[in-house]
């Protein structure tokens, strides 16, 4: 990066199923005001506003323009980015690039989704490609989740019982996060007995449909040091995009078969981790990384990512679960926010990961705080099979 960049403010709204009390403008404004307050700035101090959400999930487009009053971007520079589930992380990397360019002093990054408006279900669950996707039996989100689930099971990385154990951990973490949408008190039996969506994928494995907004303010080194006493440094970040899954290295006729032979859904995450580990001297991620905040839209994803992020050997995620290594008291705590299965306001989701990573490094996680020093956090998001953005955030430069 031309300039080193720090996160100097974060703001989140509590996740909900519905927010009939606010418009979309008011929703994003809540997050913007929270981030400004956290950074002890006013909107006048902001140079650029980067915004993102899912195109048409609220039945609208040009959201960067018609939310101008909520975003505070009137008279300012800015742009909108959309990369499906990865949007929140992509706008973060876009904002960091702006700060690193040396052209801007303060960058406000805002993601949101107001899924109590619009026909999100029809968009989210339908096949993207009317021939190729249906040919493989894969609907959009559910099909992709099933692919990861069947792959984890076929690789013998975890049993359904161990997945239930992880799901209870996620639910308990969600209960400790005031911004979490779901507040579930569930047992492993509840998970194992919840309705089958597509076996082995069950209802309780899947993320909810949430309303939330998240805002993050970043600044280049000199400005960050001037503006805040608690900067969280963006040590490195990496964007990697591949083709839509069925066309990514496997013949389309094998859409269904492709998953058991190796999930490409996680391909980008794995590649991003390999690249970032190499650039940052990470040879033993489980030892060197203090915390991971992931984009796991189902419990199966979380377990799949244990292996993609090299926290264990391939096929040995079950060991991590049995040791409870990714639990708050474990040696590599994972998604203590409750994760995406507790709150998924899509355009905000990737940015919530960054906000939670920064909160953990600042030691301000309250009941969900990692119970030891957090110096280095790995965080990532991914979207629509092919987008992935990952980042290392650190306490020190």
């Amino acid at each position, binding site marked *: 990066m031309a300039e080193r960049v720090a996160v100097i403010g974060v703001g989140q709204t509590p996740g909900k199923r519905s927010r009939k009390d606010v418009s979309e403008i008011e929703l994003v404004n809540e997050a913007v005001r929270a981030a400004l307050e956290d950074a002890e700035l006013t909107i006048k101090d902001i140079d650029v*506003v980067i915004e993102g959400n899912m195109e048409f999930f609220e039945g609208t487009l*040009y959201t*960067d*323009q*018609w*939310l*101008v*009053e909520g975003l505070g*971007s*009137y*008279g*300012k*520079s*800015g*742009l909108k980015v959309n990369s499906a589930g990865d949007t929140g992380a992509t706008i973060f990397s876009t904002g960091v690039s702006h700060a690193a360019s040396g052209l801007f002093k303060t960058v406000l990054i805002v993601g949101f989704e107001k899924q109590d408006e619009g026909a999100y279900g029809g968009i989210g669950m339908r096949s993207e490609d009317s021939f190729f996707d249906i040919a493989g039996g894969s609907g959009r989100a559910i099909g992709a989740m099933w692919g990861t689930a069947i792959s984890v099971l076929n690789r013998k990385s975890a049993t359904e019982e161990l997945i239930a154990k992880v799901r209870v951990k996620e639910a308990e973490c969600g209960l400790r996060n005031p911004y979490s949408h779901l507040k579930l008190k569930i047992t492993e039996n509840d998970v194992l007995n919840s309705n089958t969506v597509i076996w082995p994928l069950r209802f309780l494995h899947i993320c909810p449909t949430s309303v939330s907004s998240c805002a993050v303010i970043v600044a280049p080194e000199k400005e960050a040091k001037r503006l805040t006493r608690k900067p969280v440094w963006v040590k490195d970040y990496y964007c990697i995009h591949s083709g839509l899954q069925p066309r990514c290295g496997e013949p389309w006729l094998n859409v269904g078969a492709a998953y058991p032979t190796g999930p490409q859904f996680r391909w980008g995450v794995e590649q991003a981790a390999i690249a970032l580990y190499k650039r940052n001297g990470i040879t033993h991620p489980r030892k060197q990384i203090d915390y991971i905040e992931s984009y796991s839209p189902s419990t199966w994803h979380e377990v799949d990512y244990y292996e993609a992020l090299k926290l264990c050997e391939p096929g040995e995620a079950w060991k991590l679960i049995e040791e409870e290594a990714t639990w708050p008291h474990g040696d590599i705590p994972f998604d203590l926010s409750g994760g995406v299965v507790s709150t998924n306001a899509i355009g905000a989701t990737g940015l919530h990961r960054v906000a939670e990573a920064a909160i953990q490094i600042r030691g301000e996680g309250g009941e969900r705080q990692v119970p030891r020093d957090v110096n280095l956090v790995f965080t990532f998001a991914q979207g629509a099979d092919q987008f992935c953005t990952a980042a290392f955030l650190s306490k020190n430069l």
Partner: protein
Amino acid sequence: MGNCYDVHYLGDRDLADCDSLVTAAKRAYSMAKINDPLKEIDLAEISEEYSYQELLWTEGLGFCGRGEGGKWMEKGISQMSGSLPINPSGGILAGNPIGVAGAARVVEAVTQLRGEAGARQVKGAKTALAHGYTGACGQSHCVFILSH
């Protein structure tokens, strides 16, 4: 380069003004050290989905004063034979594949600066302006200055 957002709702502003274009242009001129755009820019590729926008954007870009776009155009300055030809490509009115319309303005400016524009070449073009906007009434604008 420079860009800027205006308010979205049309009732919140005077539609005969384009404050966000004025600001975006100022940011671009400042970065490119352009003091007198009319003299220093050799051609402009601007985005206009309606003919009247060319007059309004001409004012916003500072080629003439506010409310003077029509009179300025009558002087012939923006014709191919004038000192600041506007849209030698034919502009968006000649073709509008929306997602690439702004980038196409930049491509045309580069083509002109390379002297590769054939029959539509502006002779001796050294500095070019490319402009794009979004929102039916220009709610956000983006201005690029290119030079060789």
